[in-house]
């Protein structure tokens, strides 16, 4: 049941009405109801994985209490590591086991030892990377005494499995969501209206931008050997907007619909393609994951303290692990590694916190510099996306090599029966709309909101891609 599907268009209003009209008496009834519908929502993908979600929930709930209760350090450590090992173990088995088994076997084969890997016939449970990270942050925070354990199992279950964030985030923190869950929510019209606007804008990003870009990006990437330089460049740009529209669109919808239930989720995207350097990009892209790795990996490793060498090591670890989080494939590792390389100069020069404010352009010399910095950051981001999208690292290198060696910059007719340049106007319009609303959460609110909403609805209905239906990319992570 995807957010942009017809069943969900029925599910959401029904849940909304029941929540506010039947189950709104106490926070307990509100939470219990949301937990039940969240489990129903999750079971719509595959009910068998509900048991995994339940197990992960009860494991973290129980070990959290035990860590807090334990008076001896040895005992605290035991419960802590039990939770970590089980959580990462499940993630490892479902997401990474086959990759490691296959890679190990390949490595043996290359040195002349013939082996065939013992692979598991399992499918990746949807959202496992997200709810595992919810649980991990919760247990780690208790272990380091930043928070107290949650005694109410329903409240904790809602924190982990709340349906707007269950399958593709944002990755919530106990310090942010649990305090909200502990209070009875009252209906707030302004918040709900904001939520509706965000849902509509999220839909524009998904069905108009991401899914349309996807048809072009797929046609180019899947046939890259017959594409010329211009098409290959456009393919990378289209994929950049596909993945941005897809994931930030999903996040907007998640945040928007959560507001309908009176709960605020963490912001996940903040106009990342208007970043002036790669450090700023990572402060604006998938914020909940970046900050998770910062708080639970980078800082414990020493962060930006210690020698330069240690700092460089920490940067590479966090980026490579972040890449690997996306999927068990060398391409994701390469993507993480490339981003670490991009980040390195600003780390060494100490300029990684230069651009903390949102970019602005005026009619002056500095704005020219800002404009070209944005363009340069976007360009290198697109190069990294080629590795993220390509089927293998070799293909990614081939793809990039062909951009420079082909030298033809004419429009090509693609396999999706469209010309490669056709989408540029739509993408440019989207960029202008985003630029004009970069100080807000979405572009609909404010002056002429009804007109802007009508235009968004018109775009969703008339320009959306529906026949060639695509699921959200981040659901596979």
């Amino acid at each position, binding site marked *: 049941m995807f957010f942009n599907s017809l069943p969900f268009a029925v599910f959401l209003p029904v849940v909304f009405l029941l929540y*506010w009209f039947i189950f709104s008496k106490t926070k307990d009834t509100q939470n219990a109801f949301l937990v039940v519908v969240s489990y129903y929502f999750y079971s719509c993908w595959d009910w068998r994985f509900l048991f995994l979600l339940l197990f992960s929930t009860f494991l973290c709930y129980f070990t959290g209490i035990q860590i807090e209760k334990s008076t001896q350090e040895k005992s605290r450590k035991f419960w802590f590591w039990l939770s970590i090992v089980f959580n990462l173990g499940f993630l490892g088995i479902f997401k990474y086991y086959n990759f490691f088994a296959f890679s190990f076997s390949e490595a043996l084969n290359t040195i002349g030892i013939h082996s065939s890997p013992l692979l598991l016939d399992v499918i990746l449970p949807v959202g496992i990377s997200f709810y595992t990270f919810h649980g991990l942050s919760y247990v780690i925070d208790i272990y380091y005494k930043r928070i107290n354990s949650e005694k109410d199992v329903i409240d904790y279950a809602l924190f982990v499995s709340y349906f707007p964030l269950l399958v593709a985030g944002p990755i919530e923190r106990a310090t942010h969501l649990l305090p909200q869950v502990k209070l009875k929510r009252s209906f707030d*019209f302004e918040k*709900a*209206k904001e939520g*509706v606007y965000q849902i509509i804008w999220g839909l524009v990003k998904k069905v108009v931008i991401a899914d349309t870009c996807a048809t072009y990006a797929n046609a180019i990437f899947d046939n890259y050997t017959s594409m010329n330089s211009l098409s290959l460049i456009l393919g990378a740009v289209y994929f950049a907007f596909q993945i941005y529209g897809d994931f930030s669109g999903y996040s907007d919808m998640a945040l928007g619909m959560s507001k309908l239930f009176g709960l605020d989720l963490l912001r996940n995207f903040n106009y990342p393609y208007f970043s002036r350097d790669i450090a700023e990009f990572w402060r604006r892209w998938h914020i909940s994951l970046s900050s998770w790795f910062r708080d639970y990996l980078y800082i414990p490793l020493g962060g930006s303290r210690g020698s330069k060498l240690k700092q460089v090591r920490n940067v590479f670890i966090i980026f490579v692990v972040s890449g690997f989080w996306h999927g068990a494939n060398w391409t994701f590792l390469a993507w993480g590694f490339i981003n670490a390389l991009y980040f390195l100069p600003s780390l060494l020069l100490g300029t990684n916190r230069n651009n903390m404010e949102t970019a602005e352009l005026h009619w002056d010399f500095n704005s020219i510099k800002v404009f070209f910095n944005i363009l340069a950051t976007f360009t290198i981001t697109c190069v990294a996306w080629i590795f993220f999208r390509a089927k293998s690292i070799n293909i990614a290198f081939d793809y990039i090599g062909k951009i420079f060696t082909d030298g033809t910059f004419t429009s090509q007719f693609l396999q999706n029966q*469209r010309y490669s340049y056709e989408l540029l106007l739509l993408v440019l319009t989207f960029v202008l709309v985003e630029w004009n609303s970069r100080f807000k959460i979405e572009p609909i609110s404010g002056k002429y909101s009804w007109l802007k909403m009508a235009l968004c609805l*018109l775009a969703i*209905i008339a*320009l959306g891609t*529906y026949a060639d239906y695509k699921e959200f990319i981040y659901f596979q992570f």
Partner: protein
Amino acid sequence: MTKFITLVAKILLMILVLLVVLDWAYTTVYLHSSNRGKVEKVFNSKAQNYDVVILGSSRANNHFVPELFEKKGLKTFNYGMSGAHLFEASLLLKLMAERQYKIKTVILEADLGLCNEKESEAIAAKFLPYIHHSEIIKNHFSKQENFNELYYIPFYRYVDFDALIGFREMYNTATGKPTNILNNLGYHPLGHKPGNMKNDIRALKPIRNKYYEEIKQICKQNNYNLIAIMTPMCTNVKGLDYFEKANKIYPEIHNLENVVQGDQYFSSCGHMNDAGARIFTGVVLEMFFEKK
């Protein structure tokens, strides 16, 4: 909450208005077009006179050369459509009959399409803009699973088939951008692509096909002489007895599967190239039109 329900109601109303307006706008554009495809060419036409009309799938579209018919003085148009099933061929013929086309002979490619009665989405969608303007189209689709949504929800058909009749196609139609579909009197010649010349059609089972029966009925009612033909495939086909099985059900279909042999005459296993199509059309002319 009342304010919120009012807001949602206004948004829903706005969506409904947009759906109705867009539906009207798109349909109006398609009702004024006749240069982009065969369906709209027929739908937006008046009575025509033809000696020969060719119907069927790509195996009609790529195999019958109207130019050769014309050389014999036979006014011909190839209405074969790549991907079409007999569902669409029957509907197109019904529309021709409704528009009082005078046709002496209908050549129907009736072979692989005999095995199913399903619609071909890619072609069927081209009829959908006109569903509210034609009882024939409405009735033809009325037994389809998604008929209610297609017919009663404004703009649904344009969303459901957005790649075929959505914004891009509507825009190209509105701006009068022509296609090559109507070139060569509807015939689409293929080149020679040396490659994998094999096919496996063992899974296909010919059936007594409802839409083939309909086509026979329409021809009978309108005095169209119907010639049903099975067209050639390359040599390396598993399950070639399909054609014999089809012949057992419908003995009147002329089995010309083997009249053009040699992979040099094929573009792919199921489609002859231009050279093959010309030989094949010559055979058809000799068999069915020389005697006259």
